[in-house]
């Protein structure tokens, strides 16, 4: 499997439309990721090496607004929900990093109503 090209990283972000100026609103993010915990064996009896996301960070205009450390007990395709209050327009960045140099970052411009 190591030789196959890395599949395109897929991510869902929900709740951006619900942002209101100065009001807390819930954002929800889901990342497509296998979260292999390093304890499973494949069909040939070989241990599947650990491959998990270890860190999620959300920044608003560069300021950290939410972060989470992830561990191997978390299921595939991790989902996180958190609350955010934005006082004006800005740029939100969502960054995931993990084993084997995994890094994925997406940004969204927000204009709270």
């Amino acid at each position, binding site marked *: 499997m190591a030789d196959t090209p890395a*599949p395109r990283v897929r991510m*869902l972000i*929900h709740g951006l439309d619900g942002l209101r100026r100065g009001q807390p609103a819930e954002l*929800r993010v*889901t990342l497509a990721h296998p979260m292999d915990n390093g304890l499973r064996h494949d069909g040939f009896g070989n241990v599947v090496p650990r491959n998990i996301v270890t860190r999620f960070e959300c920044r608003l205009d560069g300021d950290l607004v939410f972060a989470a450390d992830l561990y191997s007990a978390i*299921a*595939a*395709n991790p989902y996180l*929900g958190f609350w955010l209050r934005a006082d004006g327009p800005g740029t939100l960045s969502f960054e995931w990093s993990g084993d084997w140099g995994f890094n994925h970052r997406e940004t969204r411009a927000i204009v709270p109503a």
Partner: protein
Amino acid sequence: MTRCLPVARALVLVLRLVQVQVLVSVLTLAALAALPARADDGRRSGLQFMGPALQALQRDDGQNPAMLWVQDGEQLWRTPAGTAGRHCADCHGDAPRSMAGVAARYPAWDAASGGALNLPGRINACRQRHQQAAALPAEHADLLALSAYLGLQSRGQPLAPPDDVRLAPLRQQGEALWQQRLGQLNLACLHCHDQRPGQRLGGAVIPQGHATGYPIYRLEWQGLGSLHRRLRGCVVGVRAEPWGTEAPEWLALEAWLAQRAAGMAVETPAVRP
């Protein structure tokens, strides 16, 4: 250890089945009572056999992990494929308008090939005929993504298998297979799903087996999978040798299941344990 496990599981399975449990779990009954009855004919979606947390996972698109595939399908709908260089929207336009209710009518008869097609089969036929692209293999991520995206356009609509006499032999074959004892455990589909829904098989609650939400995100798979994959799991579960990937038996069962669940609401993309 790994070799002993299936035997132990099979034993548990047999023990569970010989116990004729008179009382359905009170919790399950309470959950059923709390939900609005759609058709009062006793048919219940698999959704109603799950706990509240899993139900929420399916009902909330912000949480439902199958939406990762739906998002992919939406992009694939507008991505050219094959030597024709055309994408789905070139012919079909906007999926939310043009594809509403379409997924609820499969499997359907395909005059061009003179046989029945399920939804993934139709997607592949379109790829070959109109996009000049290769058919996608079963369980391919793109095929699941397009199926989920199309299924979503019929969500909430009643399953409406076509009233087509040419499908009748296939449905009859499917119904016969449904009643056919299989495998070392010598069980037919109906022994669990018609006669013992609500009871437990190992740790899992047995649903009535209505295929209303495929492709489904199954927690056990940690991914999206087709009805074919689910059926295969059950066939292996009764310790039978599954039919080949292209065998007509799968389509026959799918056609019968669509008839059996006719009128129930489409839930695609569903979440199941």
